[in-house]
């Protein structure tokens, strides 16, 4: 019988042990070597969860581990003396071993050795690495001193040299340009840019600058951020109705392009509405708080859903900014980390001032107030002018009050008609008259009339804009600890907003009683008094992952006891410190990451390198991996010439299989593809239907965005192959590419295939490749010539017209070649 817990991840840990564990004689590092064992094998019963602690023994703190055992009077751990430590005795006890058999956990001999050595060396505890603020480390000395380009390289190289390894040579200029272009803009490089760098016309640094200042930089970064914050165009539960949120995506793109400091980026999203005089885009940013899944199902219990939404927000904010799974403490104290159930609810209390009511009605898009309208840039000045004029006539607070009174009056007037009882009729009429009086009191009638006229114009204008959900603080709901997460249990303590208890307390200014989302945002980014250092480390690790393919700690969202410790902790610390010391300058961090020598390494791995370090934990090479779904789409559209690369705007609806939304209801859905240039927009703008994500996106591992996704899988499945082979988007793109090949690539096969390779892969084909494509082209062509199938059919795929100046047979045959190129490993991989 085999234990199922042995699987890939553990295998990786096993391999990792060789790389990460101390060399013989090297001293143990508690966090790297000991904590993972204790956490995985012991903490479930002897850890932070006070309600589920066996024998009153906790092994996650020094105090607990060294204390006298209640039952036997012995000591679990006697520092320096493993043979006297009950802990070791029980581990080695064959009759009644620890961990107990029924836990299905067991210790490997190597792990037992480590624990023994640790106790022998004094059983020293260290704070969990993820909760210790990052500290500066000097760049280590290296032997190969001419290799480093910046300080990152010192850390990387020193680690390699310690293991007796050396880095890979630099990648060739074409590979570098492609790598940078996909990493920084998500698009293939323009051939001219490749030529400029290849010829030495521009330096590597200039190449980086060009790409990092491209408006597409913001788009590329946004793809990742939108995964983290679970951005989607629909509500996610039950009817999965559309909701209004696309301007939030524009905000994210803008923020990265404008290089908004990350601390400000944090404040604007969590608490844009609470900033002094928030700007339009800060209000839009506060839409972050509205991105969660909501249900508009009839018959839901408001109280239950308040609990569901609260937990959803805690999961997201803690995963995104803290790399922590505080969500696990919804029902009980965290099993492996010091978060208590109370911490979960005090954190939820920060968000208790967000409007979560009134999601009813099965209309598209659904209405989830508060919302605001974002106009196109050319209309915005007009709206601003109107608003200023309106404010002169009636002050803004009075405008809001007038709207409210009007709404009530209209409602009452409607009710009046159906009332029979004269007494009640009169009473209602009195209230209507009263409302009218109150409205009249705000301004003289002529001013009010002028105001109404302007308001009408403003409303007409607003109809041309896009609505977006925002946050407007209201009176906070009462937040209780829900025992075992049970929303029906009102016995729990009432809590107010607070940070996790073990991390300290928020200091509020005098006179402020309750902490706000803004206080939380400030704490998350305050490096002196808050957890800013930890946030910086979480994010630095993720940026590393974006450019190196794997985090320095591979646990991108679990910087806790069960997460894997960083391979190179000093490097990660130093990156975190550099990040916040630069003033949270994201572009500076990215520039640093991509100008290192380590980044520029070739991604070719020898068999030996693969065997030694399959996941490339030590970075003795670059990584190669499949492009994200959006980028595969973008790449094909860009190469075809169809790509519409406008920045921002509403979501786009590309071709989608007929009937794909047939399982949606309330209301039933019929997908309407866009029959205009929106059809060829970039992948990040594709309409994100949580319940039925576009099948192309899904086949290529894009997440549904129901929860935070810090790392997407990178699979190669038959479904993905079918997408690239047969999805009309790719067929249409291939046909358009074929048109370019035939019309611009020259006359001979040789010239054309050369052109096609340059455009698609930025290189020339070799003889074998040419031969394969020549054969494919000729065979395909021969079949068309024999009239075996209708040659013009391929020209009808998609909404772009097929070229008329190319013979249909030529076009169809070259379309096949273009399809071949789009399906290659090389076309879909970043290396």
């Amino acid at each position, binding site marked *: 019988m*085999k*234990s*199922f*817990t*042995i*699987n*890939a991840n553990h*295998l*990786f840990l096993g391999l990792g042990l060789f790389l990460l564990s101390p060399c013989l004689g090297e001293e143990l590092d508690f966090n790297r070597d000991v904590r993972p064992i204790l*956490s995985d094998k012991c903490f479930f019963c002897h850890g932070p969860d006070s309600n589920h602690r066996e024998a009153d023994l906790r092994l996650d703190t020094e105090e607990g581990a060294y204390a006298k055992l209640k039952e036997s009077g012995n000591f679990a751990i006697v520092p320096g003396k493993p043979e006297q430590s009950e802990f070791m005795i029980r581990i080695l006890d064959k009759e009644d071993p620890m961990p107990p058999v029924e836990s*299905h956990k067991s210790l490997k001999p190597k792990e037992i050795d480590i624990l023994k050595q640790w106790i022998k060396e004094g059983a020293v505890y260290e704070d969990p690495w993820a909760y210790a603020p990052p500290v500066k480390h000097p760049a280590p000395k290296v032997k190969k001193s001419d290799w480093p380009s910046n300080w990152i390289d010192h850390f990387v190289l020193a680690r390699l040299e310690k293991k007796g390894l050396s880095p890979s040579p630099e990648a060739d200029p074409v590979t570098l340009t492609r790598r940078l272009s996909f990493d920084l803009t998500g698009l293939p490089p323009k051939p001219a840019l490749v030529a400029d760098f290849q010829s030495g016309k521009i330096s590597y640094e200039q190449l980086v600058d060009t790409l990092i200042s491209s408006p597409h930089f913001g788009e590329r970064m946004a793809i990742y951020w939108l995964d983290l914050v679970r951005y989607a165009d629909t509500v996610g*539960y*039950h009817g999965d109705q559309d909701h209004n949120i696309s301007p939030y995506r524009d905000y994210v793109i803008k923020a990265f392009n404008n290089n908004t400091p990350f601390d400000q980026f944090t404040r604007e999203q969590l608490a844009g509405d609470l900033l002094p005089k928030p700007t339009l885009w800060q209000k839009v940013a506060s839409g972050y708080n509205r991105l969660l899944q909501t249900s508009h*199902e*009839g*018959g*839901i*219990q408001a109280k*239950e859903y308040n609990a569901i939404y609260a937990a959803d927000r805690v999961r997201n904010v803690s995963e995104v900014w803290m790399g922590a799974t505080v969500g696990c403490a919804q029902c009980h104290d965290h099993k492996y980390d010091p978060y208590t159930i109370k911490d979960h609810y005090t954190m939820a209390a920060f968000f208790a001032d967000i409007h979560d009511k009134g999601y009813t009605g099965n209309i598209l898009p659904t209405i989830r107030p508060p919302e605001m309208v974002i106009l196109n840039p050319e209309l915005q000045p007009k709206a601003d002018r109107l608003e200023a004029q309106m404010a002169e006539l009636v002050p803004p607070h009075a405008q809001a009050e007038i709207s409210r009174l009007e709404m009530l009056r209209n409602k009452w007037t409607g009710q009046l008609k159906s009332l029979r009882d004269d007494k009640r009729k009169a009473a209602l009429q009195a209230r209507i008259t009263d409302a009218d009086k109150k409205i009249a009191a705000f301004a003289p009638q002529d001013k009010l009339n002028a105001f109404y006229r302007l308001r009408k114009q403003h409303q007409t204008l607003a109809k041309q804009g896009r609505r977006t959900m925002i946050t407007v603080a209201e009176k906070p709901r009462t937040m209780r600890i829900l025992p075992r997460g049970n929303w*029906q249990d009102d016995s729990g303590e009432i809590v107010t907003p607070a940070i996790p208890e073990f991390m300290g307390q928020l200091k509020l200014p005098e006179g402020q009683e309750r902490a706000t989302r803004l206080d939380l945002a400030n704490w998350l980014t305050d490096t002196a008094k808050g957890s800013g250092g930890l946030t910086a480390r979480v994010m630095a690790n993720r940026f590393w992952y974006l450019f190196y393919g*794997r985090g320095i700690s591979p646990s991108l969202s*679990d910087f806790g006891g*069960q*997460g894997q410790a960083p391979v190179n902790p000093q490097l990660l610390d130093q990156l975190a410190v550099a990040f916040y010391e630069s003033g949270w300058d994201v572009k500076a961090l990215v520039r640093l990451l991509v100008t290192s020598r380590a980044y520029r390494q070739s991604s*070719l791995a020898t*068999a030996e390198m*693969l*065997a030694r370090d*399959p*996941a490339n934990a030590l970075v003795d090479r670059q990584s190669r991996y*499949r492009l994200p779904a959006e980028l595969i789409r973008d790449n094909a559209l860009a190469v075809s010439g169809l790509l519409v690369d406008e920045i921002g705007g509403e979501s786009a609806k590309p071709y989608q*299989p*007929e*009937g794909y939304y047939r399982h*949606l*209801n309330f209301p039933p859905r019929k997908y309407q593809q866009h029959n205009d240039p929106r059809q060829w927009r970039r992948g990040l703008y594709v309409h994100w239907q*949580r319940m039925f994500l576009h099948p192309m996106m899904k*086949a290529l*591992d894009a*997440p549904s965005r129901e929860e935070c996704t810090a790392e997407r*899988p990178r699979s190669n*499945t*038959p*479904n993905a*192959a*079918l*997408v690239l*082979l*047969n*999805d009309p988007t790719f067929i249409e793109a291939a046909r358009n590419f074929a048109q370019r090949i035939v019309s611009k690539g020259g006359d001979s096969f040789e010239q054309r295939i050369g052109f096609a390779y340059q455009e698609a892969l930025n290189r020339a084909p070799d003889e074998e490749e040419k031969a*394969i*494509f020549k054969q494919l082209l000729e065979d*395909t062509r021969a079949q068309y010539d024999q009239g*075996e199938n*209708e040659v013009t*059919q*391929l020209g009808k*795929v998609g909404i772009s017209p097929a070229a008329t100046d190319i013979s249909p047979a030529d076009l169809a045959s070259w379309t*096949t070649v273009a399809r071949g190129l789009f399906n290659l*490993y090389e076309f879909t991989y970043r290396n």
Partner: protein
Amino acid sequence: MNFNQTRRTFLGQAGLGLGSAALSSLMGIRSASAASDIYPSAPHFAPKAKRVIFLCMAGGPSHLETFDYKPELDRLDGKAMPESFTKGQPIAQLQGKELKVLGHQAKFRPHGKSGLMVSDYLPWTAKMADDITVIKSMVTEQINHDPAHTFMNTGTAISGRPSMGAWVNYGLGSLSQNLPGFVVLTSVAGRNPQPIASRQWSAGFLPSRYQGVEFNAAGDPVHYLSRPKGVSIKQQDELIKSIIQLDKKKLGQIRDPEIETRIAAYEMAFRMQSSVPDLMDVSKEPQSALDMYGATPGDGSYASNCLLARRLAEKGVRFIQLYHRGWDHHGDLDKYMKVCCEHTDRATWALLTDLKQRGMLEDTLIVWGGEFGRTPMFQGGKGGAGRDHHIKGFSMWMAGAGMKPGMSYGETDELGYSAIKDVVNVRDLHATMLHQLGLHSNRFTYPFQGLDMKLTGVEPAKVIKGILS
């Protein structure tokens, strides 16, 4: 969390037969050589079931109109619901309404040698009285459809977790090289259909290849399966061969094991182009089979899907899930029970009987049920009487693969409100299902976010020993 790559990378360089290892890895097929300590490569103990067919009656069929007969319910018909039953209980659409008892809408009779009580709505199911095992004491935790489906399929209401079909394929692998191991078939009929999210067949944090693949009755049976118009089979085949040839050349140059997985994916896609349409074409079935199920080829009905389920089972698909989405009977219960049973009753009988005749019921586990049951209380509206969502007690049945046939297990109270005897929660159902497949629910784990995740979650789950033969 990119274990896939790590795993495959390892496989690739561990000197296993490369092409076949990649294919096995892609399909999750267990081969003798496939590095057994990486994969959970064998069941924990001898399995009774090789495959599961889960008949999901989405919307929540009423246990009080199917299997749970309560004379007291008829006696109190129209009277106020005793408060002792409902006080402090979660209620869906009846929140704040006056609660009245609604008696059974159909007669119940004992059937078969077992004398199993079945309502008159289900004459064909009644014929299987000695073959099925009815659990009358089911409880769940979610009172709204979407979270309740998610809970039934993944063991938690939190999104993003693997569905049971994905778990089973991860644990046991596929038995077919030409078809996915987890196939979902959906059909519509009855009341305004329940929306269903693709989350219900997601692989969650498990590798993507374990996700359920939906086979469509109309259009492409699998998305993008058909080649573009104007491209012949021969042309398409040559294109795929060229792609594979070029990728193989690349593999020779750079040895990235992912290329092998990719080549295997294209080979499988190539085979699926013919295997899937063949499989979906039930018109080749003899007329007698079509008649038995009441299926019309290509109509996408539940009956056709039942017939397809048998074909999929024969071809080695490990987990087959059928949805019928018409069971949310807030009003017009009688009318819609007739409609839904008309669409499903006979076909379900045909599926079980057909499998039995082919000797496949022995190693096929059939599960029938919805995400919850319905209230003993009346719900009114525009149409006739209905019932609201109910989670404290409802019925499901299982059959085949080591179940004790012709029995009823567990009980609800005298009004069919709360399960009171041998209570079975969703986790227990999962644990039992896994047990029949040879998997121990506590040892069947996958690491995610620092935890050893299980289909049955963190709360205790027990195998329902009382229903096993």
